[in-house]
């Protein structure tokens, strides 16, 4: 490689350039000496011989220069010189440098932080083979289990097998349970149970993704051939690291989940975290074992139980359209094959109308994405605005500074420095500032990312497994932003500073022509800052008010003074149809209710914001209601008392409602209104499911509506049934208490363990906390946008203060003359303030239309607001005015307290 050798030689010359210089000088000295000797030997006088030798040699300085250029490092050399000079000159104006670096640091830091999340949640590809070929059937927006006839989001295991067999477009098909199982299992025979995130996948999952094993093997189709007899597990690298301390003898170790013992057969590749961004399973188990892994989901052979995500890898050359066509064709065929004979005409028409969309999952599935992609995009826009404001600030500072340095530049230009050279010098200084800001920004982002992760995590103890650590992509982004900012804020001042009328500048350092146009540019920058700040302020105001509206929503239950926790009954070995369950629930409720400080306690399948169990109900004599499922909740007798949900009519559950008595239900007001429009529903009957279903319920009471999934949902229909009449794996346990949370919490947990020592207790928190967790997204957005809004206002006020101070110092002479001619101090003050008010007015005039347009874009994220309204805009304008006036007041006072004589003598 000729050029690598050359590069190496060049590099050596660069690093030893001092030595090379000296050697060259020595060579030249020798040459001249020898030539001189030649003459001296020919009897020429020494002095004469020396000058003759020199003449013959040529100009040594030029020759040294030429050699030096031939090394090809002069540009770097002069760049380093610029850096040295720039550092010195920045160091001399420490205040300015600090403000500039801080402004940029916040701007760049905010950008880097938000970008890291944007990247992690939305942009980064899955760490698997050719992720671009991966597609999902459906949109991946739903999780859970459904018995609906024509599901297009979730699929059954038999459907997966049929699709795998019949398709012509995929080189591989795999499936996974749409929910991750949180199991309390025992590892390697240790006594304590520990929480494990278990993901059930098909045997084809790892081969299809192309994920290799780090140790042992991954799962194969062999592990998934027949139900119930493949107790094998693959664990994640991270879990192996954290829980087994990277034990090299991990293969063959046992993990007990529920009452089944699994053998660990492999550890996955370190970079693989699963296929769902924001969820990192610890353990993967084949779907053939689904009924053994708590919470014991059924349906390996049941085509009517759809709970799986179905994904495929496109064969090379197959387009999305071809795949969609083939999948939909097969969908009809497979569904008809399952249900065909049983379908009535109407259902057949329904099936024909069903369409399965395919979506790319190159970046993985994610429930975080649905929740955060829009907010993240909006936040990204906000932080770009903040950065622009910071840039404007720095540009303004540099403009002021370059005007102050006009004499320096004039001198340098007069001495022969080319303009380009000076521009380069100034841009180097800008780059230095930008890189200072960039470094600070990365440090800030590093901290902010940790904080943000905690903010968006649903539980206090476990943060969302998202990789937002420093990575090349993020650093590249930050580097790009940094260089962009340097160019953005540096070019204008550099061009201005060097485009001088030399004679003017040399005369007094402040040519009148340059100051006025500098003033105009600065003012434009301030107007821009004000406009952007307005947008940010209104935005944050809207998000804040929306959050307050949300927090004010009455959930229908009393969220104060309720402790709630989960007991993982399935991990403790209880099965769905376990006859001991009802007794367990009742004992725990009784034991806890008897505690000091406990008002009421109850089990339930849900409280709030925990997913849902939906189903259709049928009221005899009423027309079928389509697409209006009822949300079911299985509860204990004390539930309404614990949650303080008011009873409107009839009664709630009591000891008389047993497994053998008439099945009874309590319904919500909305259910009553929709399903029983005429007369009181109490005493009337309905069926859960169709008319033929065995669940013939008698309505015994009506309660007030409550929020079920989220605070911003419309009233939903709910029915409650008693766990005494419908066996169910209940996890939620609620306790209404008085007094100290800590004391009650300890007592409650002890009471539960006194009933069953092995029952794992998790997620101990308050109902209030749980409700507030449900608006995490809104809270995060409101807090962040408020942060950014305040930052923007702060930066703008620094900008206004700087500009005004500078303007006052420039106009000292003028102000002196005005005052000498009789202007009152208040007039002078008004002179300055008027300018500020004018600037803010311009900024607002520019910002309002932008704000109105922007408000429409975020309307989707707002609750109880339709976009930017008069209140939010007026508040923001008022705030901006106050801040601007305060920022401008100091310079204005300084202007008005100018000493007359000094001012007149000023120039």
């Amino acid at each position, binding site marked *: 490689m*000729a050029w690598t*050798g*050359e590069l190496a*030689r*060049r590099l050596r*010359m660069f690093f030893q350039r001092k030595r090379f210089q000296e*050697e*060259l000088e*020595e*060579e*030249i000295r*020798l*040459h001249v*000496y*020898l*030539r001189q*000797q030649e003459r001296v030997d020919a009897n020429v006088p020494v002095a004469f011989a020396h000058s003759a030798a020199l003449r*013959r*040699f*040529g*100009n*040594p300085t*030029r*020759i040294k220069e*030429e*050699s030096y*250029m*031939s*090394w*090809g490092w002069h540009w770097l050399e002069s760049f380093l010189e610029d850096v040295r000079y720039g550092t010195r000159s920045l160091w001399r104006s420490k205040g300015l440098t600090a403000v500039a670096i801080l402004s940029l640091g916040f701007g760049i830091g905010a950008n880097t932080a938000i970008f890291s999340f944007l990247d992690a949640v939305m942009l980064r590809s899955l760490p698997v083979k050719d992720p671009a070929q991966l597609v999902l059937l459906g949109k991946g927006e739903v999780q859970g289990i459904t018995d609906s006839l024509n599901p297009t989001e979730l699929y059954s295991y038999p459907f997966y097998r049929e699709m795998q067999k019949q398709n012509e477009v995929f080189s591989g098909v795999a499936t996974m349970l749409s929910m991750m199982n949180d199991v309390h299992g025992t590892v390697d025979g240790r006594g304590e149970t520990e929480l494990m995130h278990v993901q059930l996948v098909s045997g084809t999952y790892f081969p299809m993704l192309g994920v290799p094993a780090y140790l042992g093997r991954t799962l194969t189709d062999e592990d998934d051939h027949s139900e119930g007899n493949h107790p094998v597990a693959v664990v994640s690298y991270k879990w192996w690291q954290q829980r087994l301390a990277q034990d090299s003898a991990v293969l063959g170790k046992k993990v007990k989940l529920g009452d089944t013992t699994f053998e660990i057969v492999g550890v996955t590749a370190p970079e693989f975290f699963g296929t769902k961004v924001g969820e990192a399973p610890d353990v993967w188990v084949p779907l053939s074992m689904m009924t053994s892994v708590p919470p014991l989901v059924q349906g390996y052979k049941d085509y009517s139980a759809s709970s799986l995500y179905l994904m495929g890898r496109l064969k090379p050359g197959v387009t999305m359209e071809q795949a969609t066509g083939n999948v939909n064709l097969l969908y009809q065929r497979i569904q008809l094959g399952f249900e065909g004979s049983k379908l009535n005409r109407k259902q057949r028409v329904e099936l024909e109308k069903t369409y399965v969309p395919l979506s790319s999952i190159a970046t993985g599935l994610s429930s975080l994405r649905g929740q955060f992609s829009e907010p993240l995009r909006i936040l990204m826009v906000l932080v770009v605005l903040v950065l622009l404001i910071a840039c404007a600030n720095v540009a303004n500072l540099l403009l002021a500074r370059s005007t102050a340095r006009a004499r320096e530049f004039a001198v340098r230009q007069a001495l022969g420095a080319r303009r380009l050279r000076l521009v380069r010098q100034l841009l180097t200084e800008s780059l230095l500032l930008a890189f200072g800001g960039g470094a600070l920004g990365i440090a800030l982002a590093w901290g902010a990312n940790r904080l943000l992760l905690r903010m968006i995590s649903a539980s206090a103890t476990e943060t969302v497994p998202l990789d937002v650590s420093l990575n090349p992509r993020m650093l590249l982004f930050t580097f790009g932003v940094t260089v962009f900012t340097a160019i953005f804020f540096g070019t204008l001042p550099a061009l201005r500073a060097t485009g001088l009328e030399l004679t003017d500048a040399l005369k007094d350092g402040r040519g009148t022509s340059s100051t006025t146009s500098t003033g105009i540019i600065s003012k434009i920058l301030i107007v821009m800052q004000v406009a952007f700040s307005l947008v940010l302020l209104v935005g944050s105001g809207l998000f804040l008010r929306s959050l307050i509206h949300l927090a004010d929503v009455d959930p229908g239950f009393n969220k104060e003074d309720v402790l709630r926790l989960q007991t993982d009954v399935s991990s403790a070995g209880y099965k769905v149809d376990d006859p001991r369950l009802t007794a367990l629930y009742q004992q725990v409720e009784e034991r806890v209710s008897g505690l000091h400080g406990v008002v009421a306690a109850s089990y339930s399948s849900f409280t709030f914001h925990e997913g849902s169990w939906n189903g259709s109900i049928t009221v005899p004599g009423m027309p079928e209601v389509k697409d209006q499922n009822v949300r079911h909740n299985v509860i204990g007798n004390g539930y309404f008392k614990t949650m303080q949900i008011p009873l409107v009519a009839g009664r709630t559950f009591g000891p008389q409602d047993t497994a053998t008595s008439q099945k009874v239900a309590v319904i919500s007001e909305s259910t009553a209104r929709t399903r029983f429009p005429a007369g009181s529903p109490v005493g009337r009957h309905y069926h859960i499911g169709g008319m033929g279903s065995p669940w013939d319920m008698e309505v015994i009471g009506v309660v007030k509506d409550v929020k079920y999934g989220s605070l911003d949902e419309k009233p939903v229909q709910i029915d409650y049934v008693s766990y005494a009449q419908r066996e169910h794996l209940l996890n939620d346990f609620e306790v209404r208490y008085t007094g100290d949370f800590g004391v009650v919490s300890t007592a409650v947990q002890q009471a539960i363990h006194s009933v069953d020592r092995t029952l794992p207790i998790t997620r101990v928190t308050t109902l209030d906390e749980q409700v507030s967790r449900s608006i995490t997204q809104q809270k995060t957005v409101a807090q962040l946008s408020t942060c950014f809004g305040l930052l923007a206002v702060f930066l703008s006020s620094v900008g206004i203060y700087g500009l005004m101070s500078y303007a006052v110092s420039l106009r000292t002479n003028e102000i002196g003359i005005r005052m000498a001619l009789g202007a009152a101090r208040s007039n002078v003050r008004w002179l300055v303030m008027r300018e500020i008010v004018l600037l803010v007015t311009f900024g607002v005039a520019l910002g309002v239309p932008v704000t109105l347009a922007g408000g429409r874009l975020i309307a989707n994220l707002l609750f109880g607001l339709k976009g930017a309204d008069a209140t939010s805009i007026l508040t923001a304008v008022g705030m901006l005015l106050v801040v601007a006036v305060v920022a401008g007041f100091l310079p204005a006072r300084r202007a008005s307290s100018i000493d007359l004589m000094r001012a007149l003598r000023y120039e």
Partner: protein
Amino acid sequence: MSRDEIPPGTLYLLILKTLALGGELHGFEIASAIQRGSEDVLRVEEGSLYPALQRMLIKGWVVAEWGTTAGNRRARYYKLTADGRKQLEVEMSQFERVMGAIRRVIQMA
């Protein structure tokens, strides 16, 4: 006695050829050898030798080593490398092509 400046672009060729004949030489010797070889017709502006040598060092056509002269002074001796020899051939053929072309043009009349 009038001396002629060397045609542009031939300095490398002259240096390479001189080194090919002379083995290890320092700058002064190279300059003198060129002058002698041309029977005092060609004269290098002696200084310009050095940037050329620097460039040749970077290209890897020559390597340099410090040694002592007959007069017991430190001097940098240059030596051709294999690359340098190859380059000499390239420069030679190029020179002959150019000279041949020039000759053809001026003999046309």
